[in-house]
Every structure is written in C-alpha cells, then in structure tokens.
C-alpha cells in the first residue's frame, strides 16, 4: 500500500507556506477556481517524478515574485520515506530521499508511482506525437530503470549527431566515420528501446480495450497501434540509406524519436471518428491501463491524482470508475469545485473520504 501522509509546500505555485495531512484513502479537495487544488496534486506529482506535470521549466513552479521553493512529503509503504525537493535561490534543484541527496534524479523515478489524470490530457489523443511518446516513456520508465537510462543516452547521442550534422553545413570537410559511429550507437540503443515499446504497447492495447468497454458499455473496438520506422528496417540501414536527407535537413530523420501511437475506433482514426464522450472514455481507458500495468509490475497501487474529472464524466461512469479504483486499494486524490457533488459521488464510501476545503 502506497500512501502519502503529509505534504508541506513552501513557495510552490499558489502556496507560500502551507502543510496538509492526509489520513484517508480518498482525499477530496474542493475550492473555487484558482484556489490551489491542482497545485496540491502537482506537488505530489513533483515528489514522485522530480518535476511538475504541467510546467516544463522548473523555475515556473515557484510562486510569482518569490525566490526558491521547497516541497516536503511523507510517503508510507511498509516504511516511512521522506521526500524533499528544493530549488535554491540560484535555480539549483536538489532532490532528497530521507535527507540523502540524489546525484542522479533518474534514480528516483519509479519508486513512488503515481498516475495523473487532468482535463487537458485529451491532448494525448488530438495533439502531436511528442505527447504520446512522452506518455509511453513516463510509464515504461517507472517500470524499468534500464529503459530510462537508454532513453537518456539515446537523447544524448541524438543531440551530438545533430550537432555534427549542423556543423557540416558550415564546413566543407565531412567526417563520415564519426557520423557512422553515432549511427551505430543509435542503432544499438534504438532497437533496445523499440523492443521495450513493442512489449509495452501490447499490454497497453489489451488493457485499454478492457477498460474502454467497461466504462462505455459499448461494443466498439478501440485499436492501439504502435508505429515505428524500425518495424520495416534496422535503424542503421535507414540512417545509412537516407544519409543525404539528414545532411540536407541538418538533423536525424529516422529513429525511435519519430515513433507514434495510432488510436483507431471502428477502423477510423480516433481523432476524427470519436465523440467527446468516447474520447473521455478512451482517455480513462488509457490512464487506467497505465495504472493497471504499473500496479501489476510493481505490486503496489500507484497514487491516483484526478484533477477535475467529474466535470467530464456522467454519473454512471463516475460511479463505475470510483468503484473500480476504491477496490484497487489505491490512494485517490480528487479535486472539484463543488463539495456537494463529491459527497454525492462518494456516498457509499463516506467514512473513507477526507474532505479538504480551500
């Protein structure tokens, strides 16, 4: 059982200095728009992933006009762990577990899994492929430290290779052997990552379908298809054959950094075919599949952070979702603008809910 029992926020987003204690399985956070509901969820995400779910630049999480920030949280599994993240006045970030600082933040990922569901997540379906790769990476990284290491290394090699291609543009002498070395390095790591993604997508497809039909009560089939250039040929061959294109465009045009996930409903791309409601059901299907895959492999339920989701779901779907999650023994954080609504949704689990009103 993974539980967060206490969190204190200093200069984090809406909070200059505040502490919250959580003592139930379900925590309902209600308040007006802009009162800081999402900030609490984001702080929890921050402690699990060493970064914000929404803001990609660390300095942006610091309360406007103030300097430095600190989040401190107590997590209980079979023992109590204290996690601390500090951003100093000079912008330097430190991350500590039980007062011991991490030298590599990536070593922290996966120890305290959590799943975030936010209204903007439909971007995952409608947005660019980058979001979908990030979705895969976030989940697989929590399951395998090796995957995370490989992804980081791949990005570094890619950066070097692109930098080399850019330099070629400026100078006449071109060093093919060096480019070949980067190509070979990408080949080795690219295919390891590719294999991880194939395995993961199989699981994701099955689980998402299960939850989609469970939530929507419809018989439609959703198909998740992993798309990669590496399916047709080895990365080394692709890069060698298309070397001219790389040189012309000054970047690497083939590789797992071009992967994508295709979502289909009844044989049509999901973006076009699906209604708003179907999209939501599908999104929840994806996220629950994520929850389930992590749970199965880690043997503990990830913390669920549900941001303003009941606006989007009708009552019967909300009920089903809650029923399912409570049974999984996961700690659930829910934000909403109206406390009555939450009370209604959770009336069967009243004694398991802690209400926080902001």
């Amino acid at each position: 059982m993974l539980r967060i029992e206490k969190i204190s926020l200093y200069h984090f987003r809406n909070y200059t200095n505040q502490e919250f204690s959580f003592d139930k399985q379900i925590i309902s956070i209600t308040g007006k728009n802009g009162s800081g509901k999402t900030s609490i969820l984001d702080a929890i995400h921050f402690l699990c992933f060493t970064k914000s779910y929404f803001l990609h630049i660390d300095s942006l999480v610091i309360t406007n006009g103030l300097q430095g920030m600190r989040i401190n949280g107590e997590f209980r599994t079979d023992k109590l762990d204290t996690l601390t993240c500090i951003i100093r006045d000079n912008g330097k970030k430190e991350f500590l577990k039980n007062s011991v600082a991490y030298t590599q933040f990536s070593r922290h990922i996966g120890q305290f899994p959590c799943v975030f569901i936010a209204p903007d997540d439909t971007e995952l379906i409608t947005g660019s492929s980058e979001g979908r790769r990030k979705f895969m990476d976030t989940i697989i990284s929590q399951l395998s430290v090796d995957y995370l290491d490989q992804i980081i290394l791949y990005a570094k090699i890619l950066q070097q290779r692109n930098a080399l291609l850019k330099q070629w543009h400026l100078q006449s002498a071109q060093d093919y052997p060096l480019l070949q070395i980067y190509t070979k390095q990408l080949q080795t790591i690219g295919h390891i990552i590719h294999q991880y993604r194939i395995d993961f997508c199989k699981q994701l497809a099955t689980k998402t379908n299960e939850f989609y039909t469970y939530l929507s009560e419809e018989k439609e089939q959703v198909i998740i298809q992993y798309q990669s250039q590496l399916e047709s040929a080895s990365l080394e061959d692709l890069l060698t054959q298309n070397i001219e294109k790389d040189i012309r465009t000054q970047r690497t045009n083939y590789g797992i950094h071009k992967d994508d996930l295709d979502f289909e409903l009844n044989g049509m791309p999901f973006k076009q075919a699906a209604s708003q409601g179907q999209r939501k059901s599908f999104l929840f299907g994806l996220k629950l599949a994520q929850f389930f895959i992590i749970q199965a492999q880690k043997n503990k339920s990830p913390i669920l952070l549900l941001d303003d989701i009941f606006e989007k779901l009708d009552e019967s779907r909300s009920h089903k979702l809650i029923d399912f999650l409570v049974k999984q023994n996961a700690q659930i954080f829910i934000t909403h603008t109206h406390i009555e609504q939450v009370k209604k949704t959770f009336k069967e689990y009243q004694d398991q809910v802690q209400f926080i009103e902001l």
Partner: protein
Amino acid sequence: MIFSSTLIENCVNEFSKLPGIGKKSALRLVLHLLKQDKNSIDQFANAMTNMRNQIQFCRQCHNVSDHEICKICTDFSRKKKQICVVESIRDVMAIEATQQYNGLYHVLGGIISPLDGIGPEQLKITSLIERITQEEIEEMIMALSPTLEGDTTTYYITKKAQHLNVKITTISKGVAFGGELEYADELTLARSILNRLPIVDIISN
C-alpha cells in the same frame, strides 16, 4: 574596494583573474606577498614567467615538457611499443601516480563532442595514427572516461586504426576499489557482472 596604491590594485586585479579567486582572496595573497622579502618575490615571479615562456608540448605525445621531447618519451626504461591514449595532461599525471604503467602516452587534448564544437580535427588524432604506423606500436590502450563522449572518441580512434597492425585495448570498468558493493550504482554493477573475470586469472596475476 578602495586602495591607496594603484600598484596593489593592479596586482589584486591580476590575482582575481585566476579561477576560484575573488577580490578578497586576491587581496589576502597580495598582502602576504608584500610581507615577503624582495628576493623571494623575484623567484616567485620568475617561476611564473619562465613556466609560461619556456614550456613546450612534447612533439611526440603532446604532454607538457621542458624539452622538445618529454621525459616520458625519452625514458629508455619504458616500453616504446605501448601507447596509452588519454584526454588531458591531468590524466597522464593520474596514471603516472599509480606507478603501474610503463609505456608511452598520447594526449588528445580533449574528447569528441560536436555539441561543444569539438570535432576529431581539433584533437591530436592524426598524429596518433602517424605514430602508430611510424613507430610500429604494438598495443594502444584507450584510457578515456566512460561517458558517451569518451566512448565515441574510443570508437572513432579504433575505426581509424582498424587497418593497422595494432592491438587495441581499453581500461576495464567496474566496481571501485574499497567500495561497498551495495553502494555501487546499478549500471556499473550490471557491467561488472556482465564482464566478470575468472578468478584463476586474478590469482595468477
């Protein structure tokens, strides 16, 4: 800072250009020098100017040297057919301090990193290949840091030397001496297990 002497001020400014030295430390050093007798200051100043003016980089291995060819390259007792390839002069010093190596060196002057604008042509790679051919080197030991850039450089040089009749080896990577196994990072430990050694070899060595 306000000085009553421009001589002191100039000196403080010069010192504070050094890495890790601020205005206050610079002043402390300058005032210390002021207390010394004039002879020892001459010595101090001469040491610095001589160092910069007279230092040479060894024509063979690009290590720092007092002469055209450095002490290591001219040392008769050293194995002339073995070259250890390192990134910088500091690495030569580190390996020399172990007293376990008795061959020659080759200082590259950096490692390949296009991101930082360092390509193979900025490094002493051509002269390395020439040395291997001309001096009939038998073994080349790659002693570069186990980072992406270090590895890339190792692969690159290996590729360039592939057609030559030279044995190419690399320093072994693994668990640190005197380190506790449980504190070793996972990647290092995983590599150490993959590249494990038969104990017989260890004993006979």
